[in-house]
Each structure stands twice: as C-alpha cells, then as structure tokens.
C-alpha cells in the first residue's frame, strides 16, 4: 500500500488541484446561487470552500516539492528543471524555476490570500464576504484552468529521464530563489483591493466603509513587491556581472508599473481615510493596479517582449493569458464605467494649496510615471506593428524622461508632510520649509563645486534629497519640541514617545527616509561610476577610482554541480582579496559569472573575470560609489512599513 501511495504521489497532487478547480467553481457561484435560491446559508459555503481550496493547493504544491527533493525524473517538470546534484535549497525553489511551476506558485499564493481574507471577513464584513470570495475564486479559476489544461506541472515523463536538465544556472542564487515568490506575493496581494473594488461596485458598498480595510493589504502587497524588485536588482548586480542593478528591461518594467500605481493607491487611500475624497479614483486605482499585475505576469509569461528574461513559451499559453486578462479587464472596467463613478460634486476640492491637493499631485505624478514606463515598454511592439521596424527602448529614454518626474516626487515628499490638510497658511509653511530649502540649495552648490562636469541630475538630485532630509528633521524636531513643552519632557524622549505612539505617520516617514537613502545610492552609483576593461597577467596591478588591485592568478575547482575558475585580486594596502568567478554548469552547458565585490559604505570595488586571451585574462573592473545605500534603504523601507502596520487597529464592522 505504501509503495502504491508513493508511486502515485504526483497524481494525488494533480487530483487535489483538480478538486480545487471544481471547488473554486462552487466558491465563485455560491453568492449568486444563494441569491437565486433565497438560501443565504448557501453563501457561506464559499468560506468553507476557500479553506479547502488552500489545503488542496498545498497538497499539490507539497507533492511537487517532494518530487523535486527526491529527484523524481519521471515528472517532466522536475526532469527539465532539476538535477540530482542540485543543492537542496535550489531543488525546492526550482518549483518556480520554470513556466508551469511559476504559475502554480501564483495560484497557490492566491488561494492563501483568499483564505486570509475569509478569516478576516468572517469577523469584519460577513455580509460582503461571499461576493469577495467569489471574485477571488474567479481569478483562481483563470489560473487553475491554465495550469491544468495548458501548462501542467504534474505531467509525467515515461520512461523517466536518467538525469535532470538542471535548473537554469542563473537562477541558482539566493537572490533569485526568493525574487519570484516575493514578486508574486505583491502581484497577488493587489488582488485583494481589486476584489474589494469589484464587490463594492456589485453590491453598492460605500467606498468609505471599506477603504480602511484594504490599507493593510495594499501596504503588505506593496512591501512584498518592493522586496521582490530589490531582490531582482540585487541578484542582477551580483550575478549578471555588468556592474548595474536596473536595466529598464521590459520584464523589470512589468514589475515596476504595478509598483508605481500601488504607491499611488497607498497615498490615495490615506486621503480618503482622512478627507473622504477620491472615491472614484480609488476604485480606478485598485482595478488598474491589479490589472498591471496581470499585465506583468502576461509580459513575463508570454514571451511577447524580447528581454533578458527570455522565457520560451508556446503561443497557446500566451493567447490564454491574454484572453483571461482581457476578460478580467473588460469586466472590471466595464463595471467601473457602469457603476463605479461617484457624483463628482461630492468631492469638490478647494483649489488652494493643501495637503490633499499635494496628495492628488502625488497621484498624478505616479500615474504619469506609470504611463511613461508603459509607453517605453510597449513602444517597440507598436512600432513593429506599424512598420515592422525592430527597435529596443533602453535606459537613455527611461532615464531622461522619468528621472525629472522622480525629482518632482521627491520634492513633494518634502513639501507635503509640512502642509496641513484643508488649507495652508503660506507664511507658516515658509517658516517650516525655508531653512530646509536653504540647506538643499547649499547642498546643490557644494555638489556643483565638487564636480561641475557632472550631469545636472547630480546637483539637482543632491539638493532635493538634502532639502527633504532637512524638512523631515525640522518636522520631527517641531513635533518633539511641542510634545516636550506640554509634558516638561526632554526632546529626545518626547520624539521617541511620538514615534511609538503615532506609528502610521512615522512608519510612513521612515519609508520616505528609505526612499531618500536609495536615491542617494542611485545618484552615486548611477552618475559617478568608474569602469575599465583591461587584460591582466599574474602580478599586474590595476588602479581604478583611487583603489589599487593586484592580480594574483586564478584557482580552478569543482563544487556541487559546477566547475569554477576564480580570479584572485588583492586590494593593496589591505588583506582583502576579491574573488570573481566564472562558473560552468555542465548539464546546462551554460556559463555564469559571479562578480568579486568589496563593499563599504562609500563604494563597491566590483570585478568580473572574463576570457583568457594570449595568456592574459580580460578583467572588467568597476568602482561603484554608494551602492550599499540602495540595499540599506530597502531595509529602512521594510522597517518603516512594519512600524506602520504594528499600530493596533480599531476594528470597525462594516
């Protein structure tokens, strides 16, 4: 009996997922049937269904992971993405190393979110929950249909392969192992605001009653997407060996577009919570953000755009995803046009400057940024459709067009927190921002004097970052001093009290701080990078960016499932040795590079070792200033969100 079970474990998983598909139909139909048959109890069956779907999906996922861990090469997907010698971690993460498994992970995460929503909803919004779960179930059905009928990870390969094809070596990296699940947590997380928006339009649920409920979901999804994007950049930086972390590749843009609109959504939720405005706009943003998540999945999974993430796929799957996405977008935006628009007179806003006005500008800017990214990403496709020309739109377009808008975003980040809601007293605003503006101006001048040859981005960027940092400090100081005066306390402990007390506000400020730190890292590494390509023999010394390094030859060895050639570069004046590697993975016959990096707060010395040419190695050397600030800024952002979310909520029933 035991042998029987272990032989057919994968079929068991397949069956579980198929059952989940059937149950999702039940979950999707429950509220409508309940209405038809006038048996409200039926609606609740959707809740139970969502729990069971998660259990079934987990069984499916577990059998696949099990097949990877025991290297069961009679499973086609395992045989094409794993190998006996693959380290255990990558055997597990190989689950999402290919098309079929990635989609499965998407659906699995979606079922988990749905269950969490059901648990929350049973307490807080039991009446609307069945409709919410129905929307989620319809989304899940779309993905399960694709998994079960067009890209089945449970498919057998009989007779089994002797050895696996191995995981794409580029993906055998901790950054890459966790990049896809984080992105998916973000993409899928945005399905919750989407489901709320749909439910609101279907059941005439006043936006004001649920907007507070989606704030945490949105923040969580946004954070996961942020981490996912940062991990992708970190991986590109360490693994791809071209000295950069962001290339405006179409697939990177695919994840960046929902991030931009998600950022807009977070801010517009805040406005609506405080001022009960922007209801129509919030519905639109919630729908659009999730639509862009679907678009991101489509772009990555259909192979429509040429990209470093060149995933091969067959056109049937692409067509399916396109049709699924089309259905979701037509239904959701159609519903929006029919029922989503609120009478605009109720949202009248005075035209004078106020914090809500600046929030609206924030939303305009992020939407414009998103449109510009989309334009650059799809432009090659449009041009090809019109006249057959093949072009790529690269970093020059995106940098030139987007960075000025990002500067405006940073400017707002300094002005808006100092501006009160409703109406501003301009002289008071000046008293808050005058000094920071002076500091920003001085910083820009210093930057200009230090290097007048640099791009104008350098001193404008530096000036803006200094301005916002100063404005933030002035704001902290002002609040702390007021609190200290009231309580006869000292300023530092008053500030800590405020930070502990008002977690939402200060959490948000920490996120802003993290963005500024990232901006500093990007100004440094983007504009002041030094780069050399040289041929080096043993004993040669290279001088770059004030650092001297001596080449001490190479070592060759075999490890796990690859062969490595490792260069030894001694950083003179220290006992640090940089060890860039070139690896060869025999099963996939693919080479990869591992850059050798010495990092400190000021700069990264970044070496890549290349081919042997006439007894000398070609060496690509970079000095990248301030790169570590980018990763550090990422940690500050995550901390800030965590801080903001740690505020106890006063739960309201809707």
């Amino acid at each position: 009996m035991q042998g029987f079970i272990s032989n057919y474990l994968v079929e068991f998983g397949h069956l579980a997922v198929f059952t989940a598909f059937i149950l999702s139909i039940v979950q999707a139909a429950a509220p409508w049937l309940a209405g038809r048959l006038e048996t409200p109890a039926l609606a609740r069956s959707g809740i139970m269904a969502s729990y069971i779907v998660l259990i079934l999906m987990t069984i499916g996922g577990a059998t696949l992971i099990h097949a990877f861990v025991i290297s069961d090469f009679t499973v086609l997907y395992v045989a094409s993405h794993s190998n006996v010698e693959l380290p255990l971690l990558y055997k597990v993460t190989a689950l999402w190393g290919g098309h079929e498994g990635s989609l499965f992970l998407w659906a699995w995460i979606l079922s988990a979110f749905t269950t969490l929503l059901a648990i929350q909803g049973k307490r807080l919004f039991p009446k609307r929950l069945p409709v919410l779960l129905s929307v989620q179930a319809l989304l899940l059905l779309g993905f399960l249909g694709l998994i079960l009928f067009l890209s089945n990870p449970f498919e057998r390969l009989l007779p089994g392969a002797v050895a696996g094809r191995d995981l794409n070596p580029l993906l055998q990296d901790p950054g890459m192992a966790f990049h896809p699940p984080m992105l998916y947590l973000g993409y899928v997380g945005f399905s919750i605001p989407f489901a709320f928006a749909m439910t609101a339009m279907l059941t005439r649920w006043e936006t004001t009653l649920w907007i507070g409920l989606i704030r945490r979901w949105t923040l969580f999804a946004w954070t996961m997407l942020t981490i996912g994007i940062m991990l992708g950049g970190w991986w590109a930086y360490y693994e791809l060996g071209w000295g950069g972390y962001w290339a405006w590749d179409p697939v990177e843009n695919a994840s960046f577009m929902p991030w931009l609109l998600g950022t807009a959504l977070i801010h517009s939720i805040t406005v609506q919570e405080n001022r009960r405005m922007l209801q129509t706009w919030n519905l639109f943003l919630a729908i659009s953000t999730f639509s862009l998540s679907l678009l991101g999945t489509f772009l990555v999974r259909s192979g429509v755009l040429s990209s470093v993430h060149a995933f091969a796929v067959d056109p049937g799957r692409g067509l399916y995803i396109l049709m699924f996405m089309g259905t979701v977008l037509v239904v959701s935006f159609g519903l929006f046009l029919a029922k989503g628009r609120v009478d605009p007179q109720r949202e009248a806003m005075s035209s004078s400057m106020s914090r809500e006005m600046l929030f609206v500008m924030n939303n305009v800017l992020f939407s414009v940024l998103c449109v510009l990214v989309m334009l650059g990403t799809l432009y090659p496709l449009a041009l090809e459709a019109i006249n057959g020309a093949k072009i790529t739109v690269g970093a020059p377009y995106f940098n030139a067009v987007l960075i000025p808008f990002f500067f405006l975003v940073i400017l707002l980040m300094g002005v808006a927190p100092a501006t009160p809601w409703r109406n501003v007293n301009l002289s008071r605003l000046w008293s808050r921002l005058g000094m920071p503006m002076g500091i920003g101006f001085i910083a820009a001048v210093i930057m200009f004097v230090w290097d007048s040859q640099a791009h104008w981005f350098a001193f404008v960027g530096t000036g803006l970052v200094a301005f916002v940092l100063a404005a933030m400090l002035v704001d902290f100081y002002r609040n702390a001093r007021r609190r200290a005066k009231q309580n006869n306390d000292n300023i530092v402990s008053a500030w800590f009290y405020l930070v502990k007390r008002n977690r939402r506000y200060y959490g948000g400020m920490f996120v802003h701080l993290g963005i500024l730190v990232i901006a500093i890292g990007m100004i440094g590494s983007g504009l002041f990078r030094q780069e050399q390509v040289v041929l080096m023999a043993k004993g040669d010394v290279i001088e770059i960016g004030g650092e001297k390094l001596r080449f001490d030859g190479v070592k060759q060895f075999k490890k796990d499932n690859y062969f490595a050639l490792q260069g030894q570069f001694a950083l003179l004046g220290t006992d640090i040795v940089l060890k860039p590697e070139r690896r060869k993975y025999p099963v996939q016959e693919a080479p990869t590079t591992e850059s050798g990096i010495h990092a400190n707060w000021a700069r990264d010395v970044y070496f890549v070792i290349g081919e042997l040419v006439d007894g000398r190695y070609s060496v690509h050397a970079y000095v990248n200033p301030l790169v570590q600030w980018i990763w550090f800024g990422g940690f500050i952002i995550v901390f800030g969100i965590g801080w903001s979310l740690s505020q106890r909520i006063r739960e309201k029933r809707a």
Partner: protein
Amino acid sequence: MNKIWWAIVPVLVILFGLLGYGLTSNPKHIPSPLIGKPFPVIEGKDLNGNKVTLGVVNGKPTVVNVWASWCAACRLEHNVLIRGSRRYGDKISLVAINYKDELADAKAWLRQLGNPYLWSFHDLAGRAGLELGVYGVPETFFVNKQGIIVEKISAPLTDAQFSAGVALMSK
C-alpha cells in the same frame, strides 16, 4: 468631467491590439542585415574533398543550410530539409555549410539521417560562417538566381518557412 473615464475604452482596445499582435510575432526574429545583399562567393572543399563554390549553384535559386553534427536542433530540422528537397526536386539547389565539425562525425551523421544536400561545404575553421555572420546553428539562407539573399532564418526551419523562402526566391 465624469465622461473622461470613457477614455479607458480606447486605451484598452489599443493595449489588447498590441499584445495580441505581439503574440503573433517573435521578438527574437531579427531580420538579418544581409537580406537584400549578394551572397558572398566562397571557394572551398566539400566533405569528400571536391572543390565547391558557395553562391548561386547550377544557376538555380539556392538554399544554403548551416548545420553541424554537434547541433541538437539541426537534428530536429533535418526532416524538414529532406521533405523540402523531395518536394522541390531540381527546381532549387539545396546545399549546406557544415560548420566547425569533424569530417568523420559529419559523414556519419549524413549516413544515419539521410543526405538531402547536393554537397556540404566543409567549414572546419568557421571561415565561411564568419563571412556570413553565422551566430548559431542551424541557420538557413535563401538566395535567388541573381545571387541576392532574400531570406535568412536563424532557427530550426519549419516546412512553412521552407516553402515561404522558396516562394521568395522564385519571385
């Protein structure tokens, strides 16, 4: 003001039109700069040591296929070439460049899978490949009677591509 939301409709239509178009085209298909240029005349030896000249062969439209015994994808397309040579017979010349391959391996390969080619130019050093800008095997050039390259496919050939290429050559 509220009517402005209808702008969503054309945006969606354009978006789906584009993506649908994208599905039908292959982003990796890069038209070769060689198309419209004359095929270079290259002299060398075939697998049996006979002198051969790449270019227009026997005054007929010529298909030049680049293959190697170490290339797995070439195995996939081999049947397409065999079918093509049967179908078009002596209306075209089908020749090959055997790219960076050992003589013995190449001959064994043709014995095993069948030989659709008039001859295979033996390009051990990759000299002809360099001149033609070959960057991956298999590749196929379609050359018309005037010696102009009318199409180049940098992937395993399909039957449809073969017929389309022949049609272009005879234009």
